[in-house]
């Protein structure tokens, strides 16, 4: 085939134009301004010190610097974290209702010499005495405790998620511009959503612990309230952005708002809703471990207790448990999402 090349330049071409270029005086000025701000805030957030300390740590590790605060701190904690504590030891003498013939699963009794030093009031000298004590040893006693606490954490996350879904459905209805009742309900719903979203779980939990006491109630409510704001916003936006065509078809025959929502909108948005809800569940499990730190139940409460008592070997066990659960949850929700969408 005979293809004629397009003549270059074509007739009437002018080249007195250019695309917008991102390196004019204005941009340079902006860049300098941003740099100045970063320098200022970098000093306030001790970024300079961070660089020095991290440099020292790296230097210490490769043998260039003889001391590093960071490495010292980490190795002290690291050393006391290893090995993680899985078992428990209790003095048999203190266990009043122990049946020696029927010990708990895997438990055994050991006799150990307990050496104690104390001051003799007559001679004013330190004396060493030793006595034999019997200990009940459960090799997986602490692992079991952590398991139970972890379960509680997951339960808190599930209930928090449930609570947020139930709360966010009416919120989403009223916060969707095209389904809300009137301007007042719209503003009210949007306001509530903003309020809920603006309150961090940890701080809400702090106050709820004051109101409901230590334990899971505060945890469930704190997670639920925050997530309800998140879900309400996203559910509402999906309703607003759903394809209008099927809705118009149902509106045209006078189907009514609720039925139109159910048949014209829900099938479109449900897969996305499931994705949001799974994300919230995932997030709630992670947050549930954190809000336990302020006493809102679950593994976090246990973690805080052990941390405050410097029992880093127990802390290690808890961290391992958290890691395993978050990992498994990630796998689970990825699989569920792939199946549903």
């Amino acid at each position, binding site marked *: 085939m005979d293809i004629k090349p397009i003549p270059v330049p074509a007739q009437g071409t002018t080249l007195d134009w250019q695309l917008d270029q991102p390196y004019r005086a204005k941009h340079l000025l902006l860049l300098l301004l941003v740099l100045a701000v970063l320098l200022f805030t970098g000093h306030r957030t001790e970024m300079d010190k961070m660089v020095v300390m991290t440099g020292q740590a790296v230097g210490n590790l490769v043998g260039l610097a003889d001391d590093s605060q960071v490495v010292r701190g980490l190795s002290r904690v690291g050393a006391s974290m290893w090995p993680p504590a899985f078992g428990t030891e209790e003095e048999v003498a203190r266990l009043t209702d122990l049946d020696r013939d029927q010990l708990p699963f895997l438990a055994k009794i050991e006799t150990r010499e307990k050496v104690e030093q104390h001051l003799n009031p007559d001679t004013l000298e330190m004396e060493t005495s030793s006595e034999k004590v019997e200990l009940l040893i459960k090799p997986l006693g602490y692992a079991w405790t952590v398991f139970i606490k972890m379960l509680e954490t997951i339960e808190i996350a599930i209930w928090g998620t449930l609570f947020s879904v139930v709360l966010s459905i009416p919120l989403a209805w009223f916060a969707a511009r095209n389904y809300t009742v009137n301007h007042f309900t719209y503003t009210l719903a949007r306001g509530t959503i903003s309020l809920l979203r603006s309150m961090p779980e940890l701080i809400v939990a702090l106050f709820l612990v004051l109101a409901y006491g230590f334990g899971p109630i505060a945890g469930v409510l704190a997670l639920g309230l925050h997530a309800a704001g998140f879900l309400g916003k996203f559910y509402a936006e999906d309703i607003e952005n759903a*394809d209008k*065509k*099927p809705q*118009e*078809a*149902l*509106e*045209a*025959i*006078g*189907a*009514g708002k*609720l*039925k*139109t929502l*159910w*048949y*014209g909108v829900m*099938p*479109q948005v*449900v*897969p996305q809703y499931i994705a949001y809800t799974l994300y919230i569940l995932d997030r709630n499990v992670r947050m549930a471990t954190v809000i336990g730190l302020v006493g809102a139940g679950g593994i976090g409460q246990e973690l805080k207790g052990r941390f405050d008592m410097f029992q880093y070997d127990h802390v290690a066990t808890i961290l391992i448990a958290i890691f395993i659960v978050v990992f498994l949850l990630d796998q689970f929700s990825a699989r569920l999402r792939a199946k549903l969408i």
Partner: protein
Amino acid sequence: MIEFQQISKKWPDGTLALSDVNVSIPKGQFCVILGPSGAGKSTLLRTVNGLTQTTGGRINIDGTELTAATARTLRQRVAMIHQHFNLTLRMSVAANVLAGLLPVVSTGRAILGWFEPAHRAKACALLARVGLDPKHLLRRAGELSGGQQQRVGVARAFMLDPEVVLADEPVASLDPKISREILSLIRDAARERNATVLCSLHQVDLAREFGDRIVGMRDGKIVFDGTPAEFTDERMEALYQGAQWEDNAVAEAADLYNDALQPQLVAA
């Protein structure tokens, strides 16, 4: 029977989409509306079920005047078939057809998806009527071809046995063969129920073939009203090219001729 009396529609931005439209479509008639883009065809159709509010004039449907009070019940008697089919694509074919019954089904039943056996039987019958294989019944509507989707749209439209069927470019995105099939379906199903059809089209040949009557619109006004035979090639040229026809003396005669299907020119 649909009577438009001095219907006008001015959009908030000032566009006059309809100005003083007077036309009445007798019961059972298949009336095709032709006209260039922006003539006001969609706007006119949508005033019938109140999707577009008029800014002047009156609409009577089989003797009932369309007002805010009667809109809800009137809508159940006026079906609509859409250019883009307007199905819920992630929902099954069966659910889409049954959705045509939503105005008369209780909210509880609708949400639970419990449709009476009689309703489900009717959905099946209509799907068979529009020539959709029963094996598609529980497939997602989005998996169907355009032609099949419009069949579902037609079935949905006839679920409530409408007295009026509005079809806004129902075959605009379909091939010529399927277009004929769909238009035949609409015409025949409407005839069986003695329903009035108001159908806008862009294909003049289809308009001549299917219309009992052709109404030509331009700039919100009716500029032609007559039988397909009277819609000659010159008329067609004029409608789309925008040639100005003589005087507006005929305007006064409009109402007189309307029912007799006389060809006429209303002031262009």
